[in-house]
């Protein structure tokens, strides 16, 4: 690995993370969807396919083109899921930790506007962001981490 940070450095980073963020739970609820006109691919924050809609028209592409398109959409959705994850991390971690994670993921900052993908149908709107499922309960509201939709 190229990472030159030693164990002590990483422990120091880890010590900066507050214990009760609930960050892991927030991340596990992240979903991102990418669509083309007859396909819809949804992945979780790890990029794992969790939902897939294959329209009849998609079948007409043939096996190879269909497989390539599903792969492309899943990568696209995976990047968006990671970007959502980074927003959650930014909300819950110190800048040093956020920067370290961003570097490790080699994730570029989100563009201000998503460039329309060449093959995608003019999808009416981006997938609705998942609403925060953790209720803002009085107990953990102050130190708990709640995933909020980002106001663009």
């Amino acid at each position: 690995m190229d990472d030159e940070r030693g164990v002590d450095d990483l422990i120091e980073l880890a010590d900066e993370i507050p214990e009760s963020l609930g960050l892991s739970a927030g991340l596990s609820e992240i979903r991102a969807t990418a669509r083309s006109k007859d396909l819809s691919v949804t992945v979780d924050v790890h990029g794992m396919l969790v939902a897939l809609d294959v329209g009849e028209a998609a079948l007409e592409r043939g096996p190879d083109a269909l497989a390539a398109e599903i792969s492309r959409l899943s990568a696209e959705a995976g990047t968006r899921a990671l970007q959502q994850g980074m927003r959650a991390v930014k909300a819950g971690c110190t800048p040093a930790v956020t920067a370290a994670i961003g570097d490790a993921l080699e994730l570029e900052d989100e563009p201000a506007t998503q460039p329309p993908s060449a093959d995608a149908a003019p999808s009416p709107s981006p997938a609705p962001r998942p609403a925060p499922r953790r209720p803002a309960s009085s107990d953990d509201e102050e130190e708990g981490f709640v995933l909020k939709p980002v106001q663009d």
Partner: protein
Amino acid sequence: MSITGTARRGGVAVEVAPGGALRGLELTAEALRGGGPALAGRILQAVREAASEANERARQAVTAELGVLGDDELTRLGLGREEALAERAEDTTPDTWRA
């Protein structure tokens, strides 16, 4: 580290990274004949199986390097396991990663 898991199911072959991100997907013409919903179901099931295998392999690799971690810690790393699928993954996981 390029640990992956693979699964085949009804004309669907998938390869995924630990965590489940798709690394490869191959479909046969037969796989498309059952219609969209059946195909989607087979792909999703194959991804789950392959992810379980990749995660199990990653768990073993991580354990070999770091010692035993708890299930909670591994789940947070994206290496959670489903018991039924993990058994299959264990059966197909080589004992060593050293070439």
